[in-house]
């Protein structure tokens, strides 16, 4: 069997396995609140859950659809099944997979990218599971250290630390492009500071602006190359 056939077989089985484990995980996650409720001698209040869904769930539904459409092409089959099961996409899985992909110079849409993304997401998920598992086991002796007032500023700033490092990594690739969304977003947050509580949603217009600009430039460059 040649390499291409073996790869196609791998992809076919990945989809089969991915669908099965996604649906099984879904059943487990939706069933757990009822199972835990019955252990506690109660059941979830479905009316309150529905009202809660209408207040915050719809926004997260839209966000999930956008995340699915944007990130799936980058992650490939195996990576996307795993990433959407294990979560923490924006703050960890996506940058992690991008980092691994760049280290080995794998391009979007290639078989190499499929393998590297899956390796990266699976490793990242296992590390999180391991750290959380150990943390939960050590929760009692670890709690005073982690909750010590001296360390709180560090853990309160994990996200700015991540985005600072990412800013250097990505802005240097195209600083002229970066200036536009950075200035627009900075001005927007300065004039409407209440938006800071919805930063994760502001990624959508900011990302759309950056993608739109790069699309316009890419088309222009391609037309120029065709005419030359």
């Amino acid at each position, binding site marked *: 069997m040649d390499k291409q056939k073996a790869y196609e077989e791998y992809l076919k089985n990945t989809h089969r*396995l991915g669908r099965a484990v996604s649906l099984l995980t879904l059943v487990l996650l939706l069933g757990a609140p009822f*199972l835990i409720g019955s252990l506690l001698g109660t059941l979830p209040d479905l009316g309150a859950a529905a009202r809660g869904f209408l207040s915050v769930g719809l926004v997260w539904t839209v966000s999930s659809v956008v995340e699915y459409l944007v990130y799936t092409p980058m992650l490939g089959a195996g990576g996307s099944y795993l990433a959407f099961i294990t979560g*923490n996409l924006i703050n960890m899985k996506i940058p992690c997979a991008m980092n691994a992909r760049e280290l080995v110079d794998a391009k979007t849409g290639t078989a190499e990218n499929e393998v590297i993304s899956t390796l990266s997401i699976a490793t990242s998920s296992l590390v999180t599971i391991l750290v959380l598992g150990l943390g939960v086991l050590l929760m009692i002796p670890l709690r005073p250290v982690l909750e010590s007032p001296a360390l709180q500023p560090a*853990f309160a700033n994990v996200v700015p630390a991540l985005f600072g490092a990412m800013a250097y990594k990505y802005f240097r690739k195209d600083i002229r492009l970066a200036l536009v969304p950075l200035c627009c977003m900075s001005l927007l947050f300065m004039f409407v500071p209440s938006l800071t509580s919805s930063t994760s949603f502001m990624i959508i217009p900011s990302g759309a602006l950056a993608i739109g600009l790069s*699309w316009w430039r890419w088309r222009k460059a391609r037309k120029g190359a065709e005419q030359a």
Partner: protein
Amino acid sequence: MSVLDQLNGGGIYLICGGIVLFIAAICVVFLVRAWKAGKALGMDPVRMKRAVTSSATFSLLPSVGILLGVLALSGSLGIPWPWLRLSVIGALHYETQVADAAAEQMGIRLGMDPMTTQAFATIALLMSICIMWGMILTALFNKKYLKRLGGKDAGRKSGGGFGDVAMVAMFIGMVSAYLGSYLGGFVSGNGLFTFSGSWTPLLVAAVAALAMAVFTWLAEKKHLDWLDNFSIAGSMLLGMLAAVLVGH
């Protein structure tokens, strides 16, 4: 026995731990399959090993941050449920918001009012429902969606299309939104253009970016390629250290 004691009971640990173990097993299966597929495709094991090592080091610090999310939620929801949520599908920025919304519907304020068993079960259900869509979409449409996207590119050896450009642009947009929020928070966080908001996130981001620049310089100019594996985690650590030093 208080509700919190019940939420930290052995039965709930067993349910949540069982699901976490199931997910860990899935990850191992995908990891092994991808490794074997890479070898079958003739990929260099050294490069695959590099992807695994860099992903492990990359994930270490953010995972400690996620562990703190477990700690933060454990005061109102017990330890096992936040452990499950943040190990599987959840995200640090999502969980608290949804838990708070569900608690509000049950007439309690999360972390302030005593938890009830029914409020907990309702919160747990809403946390599961609100974020399940990505998983449903992948299960239903992944094969068709990827086939449609990759139709033209299947089997190609190199990129060069708009896909890679778009991914870099998406990241530039995402980072811009966060940096803009830190700048906006400092300038107008305590009133429009008062310049009295918190400057710590800006400082932390700046230190992390500077550290990243140094790591990149060492890797590229001094040929210390191995540093690439630790550059993001190391930069984050230095940025977080800056926050400890200024004590905000």
